[in-house]
């Protein structure tokens, strides 16, 4: 489900104790969102439940980041990311997100769980140029190769720093 919201330049800032939680099924369809989620994003529960999580995807986010996120969580790893999200009214809000796998009682993956906290401004300042470069690479690569190309570039940067992706994100 693609949203047709037009982004504005207005930022909604999270408070220090804001704690945004959502859960999805294995395909990324939202199965639960807490009240802060709804409060910040401006969506009501019926609009969210069953919707793809990209309902709040902001066009400024490079697709390579989400490609990596999915690779990691499908591999059973947790994934950290600084994400710029889109509100229903077009405003945006930055979060420091952590996504992990949900397991059913038999231990099989049953969905994903995500917590978002107030991000540090310094970290946002650090990732913004990275995301811009990734977006540029994606525009150049064309829609089919875009995510992989920008992800390749990101991983080359990480290799140069000799850091895991998560380690890098946490160090920001």
């Amino acid at each position, binding site marked *: 489900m693609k949203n047709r919201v037009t982004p504005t330049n207005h930022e909604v800032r999270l408070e*220090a104790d804001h704690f945004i939680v959502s859960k999805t099924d294995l395909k990324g369809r939202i199965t*639960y969102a*807490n009240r802060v989620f709804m409060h910040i994003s401006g969506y009501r529960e019926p609009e969210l439940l069953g919707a793809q999580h990209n309902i709040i995807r902001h066009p400024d986010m490079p697709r390579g980041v989400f490609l990596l996120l999915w690779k990691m969580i499908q591999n059973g790893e947790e994934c950290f990311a600084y994400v710029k999200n889109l509100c229903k009214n077009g405003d945006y809000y930055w979060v420091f997100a952590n996504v992990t796998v949900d397991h059913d009682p038999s231990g099989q993956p049953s969905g994903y*769980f995500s*917590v978002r906290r107030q991000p540090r401004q310094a970290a946002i300042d650090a990732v913004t140029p990275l995301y811009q470069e990734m977006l540029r690479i994606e525009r150049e690569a064309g829609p089919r190769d875009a995510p992989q190309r920008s992800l390749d570039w990101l991983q080359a940067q990480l290799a140069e720093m000799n850091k895991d992706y998560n380690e890098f994100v*946490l160090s920001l």
Partner: protein
Amino acid sequence: MKRLYLQTRYNLIIALLVLYSLLIAGLGALGIDPLWQGVVALAALATGLLAWWVMRMPFRVINNIRTLLGEMRQGRYTSRITRVPWMGEAGHLAWDLNEVLDQLETFFREVCTSFELVSQGRFYRRTLPQGLPGHMARTLERINESLEAMAQNALYIRENEMASQLQQLNTSQIMNNLTLTQNDLMRITDEMEKVSGIALDTMQKANESEHSVSEVVSAQNQTLQLIQQGNETMSQLKAMSSEITQVLGMITEIADKTNLLALNASIEAARAGEHGRGFAVVADEVKQLAESTKQATEEIREVVSTFERETGTMLDNSNRMMEMADHVQQVVTDMSRQFNEFATQSRETHRSVDYAHDICFASLVKVDHMIYKQRAYKVFYGGTDTPDAEAVRVDHHSCRLGKWYYEGIGKQQFAGLSCYRQLEGPHAEVHEAGRTALAYLQEDWKQDEALQQKILDAYRQMEEASERVMEVIDCMVPEKHGH
């Protein structure tokens, strides 16, 4: 009586109310229009249904909450309650529970993931207390402190492991090098021993030669003396033969005079005639005697002159022999001096070689000690049932230095030195300390700090004693050689 659930009770109340309304409607029907009667009955039923429906939803929520709490009791925090609009307290209850679960689930995931990473040896992950309520956040902070400590510890362990691996590498490298050096020194010491033997042999032969040459010199001197004596005798003989010639002259003169006298006497006898006949016979006899004396003297003179000639030749020869003997004596004296020098030099050589040999052996002993110590250290890493451990168990009588000391050259050549006596104590101590360390290492020292201290002490004592051994060895060789 079976206790009813709240929902059943409410359903019962609703049903009773509906029944009650229907009853009132029925009673009222006696005085009212039947149409109204129907409307009221329907209204009562509808109200009942509505009441049931409105009540059903919160009860569903409450049921959900119950299920959720049941899962929580089993330690599962993943489920949530959704779609609870317009449910007032029940809705709030559900949301509050959801958000408590959000916190709990996050809390446990934080703890789980960070510890999982730690168990994989990755220490960058800390739990994120941000956004969680007081007690949980504080717990996570405490956990972070222990994670920090674990990271430090892991770093320390890795450093230690690294150091220990390097140390092991170094030790085995040192061992290899030392073993090479040891082999070299052993070969050199052997060779030196051979060279020393050869030098000793040379020295003895030189001494013998020197002796022989001096014998030749004295024999030559005697010959010279004999020749000189002969020479003198010859000169005397020569002098004597000229004296004889003189005497012979005198005898000839006497014979001539006698002859003359005999002639005079025979003349006088002739003159005397008959009376002089007898006298003439005597004069004749005297004349003949003089004649034969002269003849004999001539013969002797001839012999003597031959003798004189021969003696002259002999004297010449003897003089030449003396010159030659003189020359020979010079040559032999030169030779003797050279042999003397040669003997001195070979004594010198032998002394140097012997000194060098002792130095070599001292180095070998030092290397042996280093190897012994390295082995003792290797036992620490490699275990107490290795060939190294076997080597460390050897006592101070059976190692190379021990054999040298108690049975070999050491005892023969060094026993008189004060250093020799000083060596025994520290040497025994090195072995004792090594064996003590080994014995402790066989116990369960990893859990026992006191034992660890003892092991350290044993190693330390081994080093200390070994240092004294080295010192004594360093002064023993100069002491023996008087340097």
